[in-house]
C-alpha cells in the first residue's frame, strides 16, 4: 500500500488513492488532496458535500452515490459536477478520507 503525506502527516492509501483508515483523516488534509485532484480551492459548497459524505459514511458504513447525494446533501447533481467535475461521489469521498462509494454493484 502506498504512503502519502498530507498536512505533514503520513497516511496509507490504496492504489486508487482512497484512505485505508478513515480515522487518519483531518480537515486540514482536504485542500492538499483536492489540489492533487485538480480542485484548486475548496469553497463552502465543496465543504458542504465533503462533510456530508463523511457524516453519512460514519453513520451508515457506506458513502452515498451521486444520485443519493443530489437528493440529500442540499447540493443538486448538476452543481455537484461543477464542484467535482471528474465524478462527485468518487472525488468527494477521496477528499473526505473515506473509502470509494460502493453504490455500483
Amino acid at each position, binding site marked *: 500500500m502506498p504512503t502519502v503525506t498530507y498536512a505533514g502527516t503520513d497516511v496509507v492509501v490504496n492504489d486508487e488513492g482512497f484512505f485505508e483508515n478513515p480515522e487518519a483523516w483531518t480537515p486540514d488534509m482536504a485542500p492538499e488532496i483536492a489540489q492533487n485532484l485538480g480542485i484548486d480551492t475548496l469553497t463552502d459548497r465543496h465543504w458542504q458535500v465533503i462533510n456530508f459524505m463523511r457524516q453519512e459514511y460514519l453513520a451508515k458504513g457506506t458513502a452515498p452515490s451521486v444520485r*443519493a447525494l443530489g437528493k440529500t446533501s442540499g447540493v443538486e447533481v448538476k452543481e455537484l*459536477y461543477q464542484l467535482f*467535475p471528474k*465524478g462527485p461521489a468518487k472525488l468527494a469521498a477521496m477528499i473526505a478520507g473515506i473509502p470509494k462509494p460502493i453504490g*455500483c*454493484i
Partner: protein
Amino acid sequence: MTKRIVILGGGTGGTLTANRLRKAISPHEAEIVVIDQNNQHIYQPGLLFIPFGMATLEEIVRPRSRQLHSGIEFRETAIDHVDIQADQVYLSDGSSLGYDVLIIGTGAVLQPEETEGLVGPGWMKNVFTFYDPEGAVALHQALDAFTGGRVAVNVVDMPIKCPVAPLEFCFLADWYFHERGIRDKVDLIYVTPLDGAFTKPVASKALGQLLSQKSIEVITEYNTGQVDEEKGRLISYDGREVPYDIAVMIPAHGGSPYIGRSEGLGDELNFLPTDKHTLQTTVKPNIFALGDAAGVPTSKAGSVSHFEGEIIVENVTRFLSGKSLDASFDGHSNCFIESGFHKALLIDFDYDTEPLPGHYPTEVGMPLLKESHLNHLGKLMFQSFYWHSLLPGRDIPGIGSSMPTHGKHFEALEHS
C-alpha cells in the same frame, strides 16, 4: 391466535417466499396474504429477447395468482402507504390490513423522468428501454425497421436490475445485425457510468475483451446528464456527447413510490435499509425485505431473490416463535450472460467473492466466465425451471443458497 404475514409484491421474491412459508407454517399458526397492483407475473429475464424477436410477451407473462399455492390469499390492489408504527398497510382501494410480519418484495421501478429530456419527443420513437414490456415490444419494431446507423446502449446510473443485461443486449444486437447481413452498417456503442464493462475486475476484463472482439465501442465513466432527443445525442454532466440513431436506455432505478409515502420506511432512493445477512430491515424488527427492494450490496437479480427466499423463510419462522435470527445470507448471486451465436457465459459470486473462472456448482459443472453452448442451453431451459421449481419453492439438489467455492479458480484474482 392466528398471526398474519403480509407480503407486498407478487414477483419472484414474494411468490417463492409465500409458497415456502406456506409449507413451513400451518394455516392455523399464520395466514399469508400477498398484495400486488396487478395480476401479471413477468419472467423478467425474457424481456431481453423480445427486441430481437426471440421471445414474445405472451410467452413470458402468467397470472401471479396462479403461481401461489392454496392457502395463500392474493389481493390485487396498489399500495398507498405503510404505517410502520401501527403495523398497518393502507391500500389504494381504501381498505387497510394489519400484520404481525411484513415482507417487502416490491422490487425496483424505472425512473426515466429523473433524466433531463429522456421522456421527450424521441421516447418510444427512437429512444427505448427494454426493461419494461411496452419498451421491449416497441424496440423490436424499431430494430426490425433499422437499416444502419448508430445504436447507443446507455446505463444511466447504478444500481440497476440485472447489471449484465445491458451487456447481453449489446452481444445479442451484434449477432442480430450480423444475421440480417447489416452488421457492417451498424455502430454499436456501450455507454456506462462504470470504469469498465462490469463492476468487478476479473469479470470486467473478460467481458471487456468480449466487447472488443465483437467490435462494440465502450465509453466509460459516463454520467448521463441529458438526452437531447431533437438532435439525437446523449450529453454527460462533463459535457461529452454521444450521437445516436437509436438509443437503448437503462433508466435510473428506485424503490416503489409507496415506500416514499411511508414515513420511516425507505432510504433516499426508496430502497429498504436491510441487514445484509438476516434480511430483517433496520427500520423495524417485524419488517423483512428481499429482492430488488432490499438495500443490500449485491446484484438486483432474480437469482438473489431465490437464494434470499430460503433465509427469509427461516428467519420469519424464527421471529414468530421468538428465536434469534439466522445471519447466513452471503449475497450469493449468479447469472447467465447471453453472448450471441448460441453461446452464453455464467457468473457466480457473493458479497466477498467476485465472479471468477472455473465451474459451477462443482469442478464438473457448467463453465464460469467463459463462453459455451452449454450455458446458452442453461439460459433457455431456465424459464421452465423458473415457473415449475423456483417459484413453487422446491429445493434443487446441488444448488444451495450459499455460494459454492469448489470449482472456482481463485488464482485468477492474482492476475487481475
